[in-house]
C-alpha cells in the first residue's frame, strides 16, 4: 500500500465518525494498539519535547526501508502518532522525504499538527523527514 493509499484508507475509516467525540474515541483506540515501541527506545536521544506532551521516536533502517517506532505520554497525541507511523513507517527514504500529508486535514484533526500547538507532533513529522534525508545521503538511495 502506498502512502497515498494509506492516507485514503485512514480518511475512509474516519468518515464513519463524523462526530468529534467518536473521532477522539477512535484516536484513543488507535493509541492502545500502537505497537513495536520498546522501553529501551524511551531515551533522551529519541525525545521530542513539546510544551504540552512529549513524543519519543525511534527510526531503524532495514531492507532499504525505514521503520518508525514511536510513543507519547498523552493518549491523544499517541493516537496521532499511531496514524503518522502507519502512513510513514516501512517506506523508502525517498517516499518519506517526498510524502505530502493531507489526511490529517481531511479528517479534521489538523490543529494537532500546527507548529503552534506545541504537542510535539509537528516536530515529529519534521524529524521523520530528517531521518529520511539522512538515510538517503548515508546509503545514497
Amino acid at each position, binding site marked *: 500500500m502506498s502512502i497515498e493509499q494509506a492516507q485514503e484508507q485512514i480518511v475512509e475509516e474516519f468518515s464513519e465518525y463524523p462526530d*468529534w*467525540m467518536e473521532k*477522539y*474515541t477512535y484516536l*484513543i483506540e488507535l493509541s492502545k494498539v500502537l505497537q513495536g515501541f520498546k522501553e529501551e527506545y524511551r531515551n533522551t536521544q529519541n525525545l521530542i519535547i513539546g*510544551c*504540552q*506532551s512529549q513524543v519519543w521516536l525511534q527510526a531503524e533502517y532495514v531492507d532499504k526501508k525505514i521503520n518508525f517506532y514511536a510513543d507519547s*505520554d*498523552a*493518549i*491523544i*497525541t499517541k493516537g496521532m502518532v499511531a496514524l503518522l507511523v502507519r502512513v510513514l513507517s516501512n517506506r523508502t527514504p525517498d517516499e518519506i522525504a517526498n510524502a505530502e500529508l493531507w489526511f490529517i486535514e481531511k479528517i479534521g484533526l489538523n490543529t494537532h499538527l500546527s507548529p503552534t500547538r506545541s*504537542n510535539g507532533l509537528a516536530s515529529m513529522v519534521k524529524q521523520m523527514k530528517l531521518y529520511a534525508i539522512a538515510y538517503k545521503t548515508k546509503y545514497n538511495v
Partner: protein
Amino acid sequence: MIDIQAIRKDFPILNQKTYNHQIVYFDNAATSQKPQIVIDTTNEYYLKYNSNIHRGVHYLSEKMTEAYENARKTVKSFINAKFQHEIIFTSGTTESINLVAFTFGEKYIFENDEIIISQNEHHSNIVPWQMVCERKGAKIKVLPLQYNGELDLNAYKKLFNDKTKIVAVNHASNSLGTINNIETIIKIAHEHNVPVLIDGAQGIQHQIVDVQQLDCDFYTFSGHKIYGPTGTGVLYGKEKWLNEMPPYKGGGDMIKTVTFEKTTYNDLPLKYEAGTANFVGAIGLSAAIKYVEIIGMKNIIEYEEMLFKYLKEKISKVPEIRIYGTATNKICLISFLLGKIHHFDTGMMLDKMDIAVRTGNHCNQPTMQFYGIEGTVRASLTYYNTIEEIDYFIDSLIKVKQLFG
C-alpha cells in the same frame, strides 16, 4: 451581589460558540477578557486624539498627554500609592520585574549577596533574579512551599542574614491559586531592613491592593490580566527606591540633557519610561480599572468567593480528582489532574466541549517539580464566570473521565 447578566453583556466575546456550546472561558489567569468600554475607549483615542505625548505643543498631543497622565492617576488611586510619579507604565509584569531586578541589582547587589524568592513563583519572578545572580555573583535562597500550597513562613524567617538584599514573592500563585500572606512576608523582611517586591500579576484583579498599607517596596502587575489591553503593565515603587536606583532602558523622554560626554536623567516617572510609551494602551488600562471600580472590588471578591466555594465543593466529588493547592486562602483557581489522564488529554477534550482551560506547567516548573508532576489542568475563574458554567464544566470533566476510562 453583582448583576452577572448585566456584566456578561459587557463582554461580547463570552457570547459565542467555539464548537457547539457557548464558550466557557476558564483561562483567566493566562489572560482576561476585555469589557466593551476598554475597546471603545481605545478606539476613541486612536480615532480622535492620536498623537505622541509629552513635549508636544499642539492640541492632539496635549489631549493625549493629559489622558495618559490621568491614566497614571487612575492607577495611583486604585492601588493607593502616595505619589503619582511612583507609578511607572511598563509593557507587563515581566518587564516590571526585570526593571527592578536589573536596576536594584546594579546598585545594591554584589558578590555573595542573597535574594529570597519563593518555591512557587512564575518564571517571570525567577529568571530575572537568576540573571542578576549570574551577573553579580549573588545567590538565590528559596522560601519553601508546603504541600498544601502555602509558603512556610517559619522557614522564611530563618533565611535572612546580613547578605539578604531583597525578597520577591507573588501576591497570588498562578499555578496553585494560593493568596500569600504578603502582609506578614513584608513585615518580617522589613524587620531585617530588606525591601520586598510583590508580583501582583494574579493579585491585582482579585484583591484590594493598598500599597501604602501593605508597605511593599515594589508592586507589579500586567494590564492584560486585569481586563486591559495587551502590552501594558505597571510598576509601583516607593519614591525613595525609584530615585536611588539607576535607569533601566535609555532613550527618548527618560533624559534631561544629552551630550556625547554626559547624559543627565529625567525625574520620575519619566526616568523609567524610555521611548514612546504605549500611551493608548495605558489609557485602555485605566478604562479597565475604572470598570472594576464601578463594579466594586468588594463585590467582585464576594462573588468570586461564592463561585470558588461552589467549584471546590463540586469538583471534590469528581472521581479520582487530584487537586494541587489546598490553601484556605485562594483565588478562584483550581489546578488538578484527573486520575491517570495526561493534562494535555484532559485539556484537549475540554476544549472540544468549548471549555478553555490551561494545561502544562504554567511557567512554574519548580512547583511542578515539587509535586513530582509534569503539569496540571488549571481552571481559573473571574467575576464574569457563572455557577452554570461550573456545572457544565463538572459534567464535562466526568465525560472526559469516562472517555479515557
